[in-house]
């Protein structure tokens, strides 16, 4: 969902201030602190995303410092740089963090478009950059199919959710006949539809129909009438809440009562307003995390986050927190705050316990970890289950 619109690139660049850590090389910061950059959308169009992510990062740093810091007592310092939710400003912020503040790694930006705009700067300066929330596949693997050596992320990529929901449909809902209704004007939707249909068929199911709509459509009844006549056992709608709300409403009006499932693009309170709470019963969607998860790590995170900020942490906060944990873990394992050593350690991240699951980076720098499935019950999001990759 983070690819929406003007590219809400959620890339939190973790410029871990490695210089401070490596003895005499410490141009930035004193000998007992490690500087890490935060290239975050603090103002502008997606400021609310940036704020939530930043809160997560700061909490992780605070906890690590309270527990005695890293590398034998060095404190982690986050150097914040506001990229104003614009790609060009994100570039300026990145350059400033690397050349003036001499950070060791960067967390951010938050939205994919901004991440893509700055990744070359990180690459050229050989500073590892980690976006907590940029889901676009191209962030870690470029157009040429080569892995971007200095780019990392703590969220899963778009197609992964297609797999998750296909497994959920086949194994938890135990259905075999699915219809895909996708937004043909969005790459997000098309990528998810392909991933879903591959995995669903591997599980022995059949895709009995594929229909499409366009962003901003108002009337979906004709296609839905056709879908109803196919008698599907489940309908998969990988799209954003605006259209999904109308589709679910109209589908229920036409008497399509089977489960309707989707992805993190559904995650918005407008969904309930448009579709209505009743229509949303028996619908499920995948997300990065649920604050209702009973996993002890999640419970603990939600508790300390609430204590710090007096609000429920969103998926963005959890991902920001996890991104910071990944950097801290890499510094510890590298036993150094040099950017190159952090990069090498990040690459080898394995079985790291984070809030959003147990995280291992694959060869393309993408996390392999579990996703959660959320069920809508009477207009409320409720935690349904965790699906492992």
């Amino acid at each position, binding site marked *: 969902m983070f690819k929406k619109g003007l590219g809400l690139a959620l890339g939190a660049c973790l410029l871990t201030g490695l210089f401070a850590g490596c003895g005499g090389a410490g141009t930035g910061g004193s000998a007992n602190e490690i500087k890490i950059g935060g290239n975050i959308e603090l103002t502008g169009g997606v400021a609310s995303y940036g704020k939530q992510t930043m809160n997560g990062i700061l909490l992780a740093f605070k906890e690590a410092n309270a527990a005695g810091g890293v590398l034998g007592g060095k404190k982690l310092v986050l150097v914040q740089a506001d990229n104003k939710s614009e790609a060009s400003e994100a570039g300026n912020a990145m350059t400033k963090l690397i050349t003036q503040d001499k950070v060791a790694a960067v967390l951010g930006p938050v939205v994919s478009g901004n991440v893509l705009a700055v990744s070359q700067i990180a690459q050229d300066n050989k500073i590892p950059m980690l976006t907590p929330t940029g889901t676009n596949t191209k962030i870690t693997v470029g157009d040429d199919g080569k892995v971007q050596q200095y780019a990392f992320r703590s969220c899963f990529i778009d197609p992964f959710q297609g797999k998750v929901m296909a497994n959920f449909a086949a194994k938890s809902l135990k259905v075999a006949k699915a219809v895909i209704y996708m937004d043909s004007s969005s790459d997000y939707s098309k990528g998810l539809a392909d991933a879903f249909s591959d995995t669903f068929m591997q599980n022995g199911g059949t895709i009995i129909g594929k229909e499409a709509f366009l962003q901003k459509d*108002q009337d979906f009844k004709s*296609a839905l*009438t056709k879908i109803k006549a196919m008698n599907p056992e489940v309908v998969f709608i990988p799209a954003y809440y605006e259209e999904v709300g109308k589709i679910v409403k109209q589908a229920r*009006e036409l*008497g399509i009562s089977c489960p309707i499932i989707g992805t993190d693009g559904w995650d918005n309170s407008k969904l309930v307003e448009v579709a209505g709470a009743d229509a949303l019963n028996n619908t499920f969607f995948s997300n990065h995390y649920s604050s209702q998860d009973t996993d002890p790590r999640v419970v603990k995170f939600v508790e300390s986050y609430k204590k710090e900020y007096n609000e429920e942490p969103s998926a963005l906060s959890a991902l920001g927190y996890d991104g910071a944990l990944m950097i801290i873990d890499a510094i510890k394992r590298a036993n150094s705050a040099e950017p190159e050593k952090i990069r090498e350690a990040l690459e080898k991240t394995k079985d790291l316990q984070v809030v959003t699951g147990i995280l291992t980076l694959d060869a393309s720098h993408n996390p392999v970890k579990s996703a959660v499935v959320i069920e809508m019950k009477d207009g409320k999001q409720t935690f349904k289950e965790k699906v492992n990759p």
Partner: protein
Amino acid sequence: MESFFHQLIQQLINGISLGSIYALIALGYTMVYGIMKLINFAHGDVYMVGAYFGFFATTVLHLSFVPALIVAMIGAGLLGMFIERAAYRPLRDAPKIAVLITAIGVSLLLEYGGMLLVTPQPRTFPKVFEAVTYNIGGIVVNSQQIVILVVSILLMVILTYVVNRTMIGKAMRAASFDMDAARLMGINVDQVVSFTFGIGSALAGAGGVLVGVYYNSIDPLMGIMPGLKAFVAAVLGGIGIIPGAMIGGVILGVIEALVSGFISSTFRDAAAFGILILILLFKPSGILGKNVREKV
């Protein structure tokens, strides 16, 4: 076979409710064209503004459906008259292309000015009446669909009465026939044009409210697609001919429903605009249009 029949009926119902909205918007296009020979591309956006008037009438003024509809119609009507007075009247003697470009400018102004004023966030239209779903032998009809159809038909009947039976209607028909001659006969043409814009825009405003109620969500760019589709509907029925707009709207709605239902939803818009091309190639005057020979 039975299920095919079911589906066909259901798609016809879907198509007619969608088509009656197109028809309401198309009427405004066709009336303005009939009199001024101007395609008012801002018309779809007047429809959007109408939806917002309806939205604020129900949320801020707490009006119920019918008063909100009337407020929206009056608001949209006044906006239409204002646009005509401010943007088109000064260009009455300018080349047609200048007026057309102005229309596009007004359209963009309304879209992006609207975004500035009411934010691009879509808004949820409040529930103005309970939607009851009737299931008649497997065919689903919604009370909102019935309301859309009834309101549209009612408005079209009133319009037909005004145009054919009243003085101002007579003046409109005269001006559409020959503006200069009408002026020579003592008709206040400016007033007639203004009235035409008012009526056409009021109908679009009504369409906006109906769509808001039916689909539950409105946003500042909601007028673009329906505006273009209504234009196709007006051309299909014969632009400048009032019953043509009604027929064109309903036909277009039904074709879209049938194409998405029986061929593929991906081709829906292609079909709508394909029709425009076919009509322009083979019968540019539209279904109800008569071929007029240009006098040389």
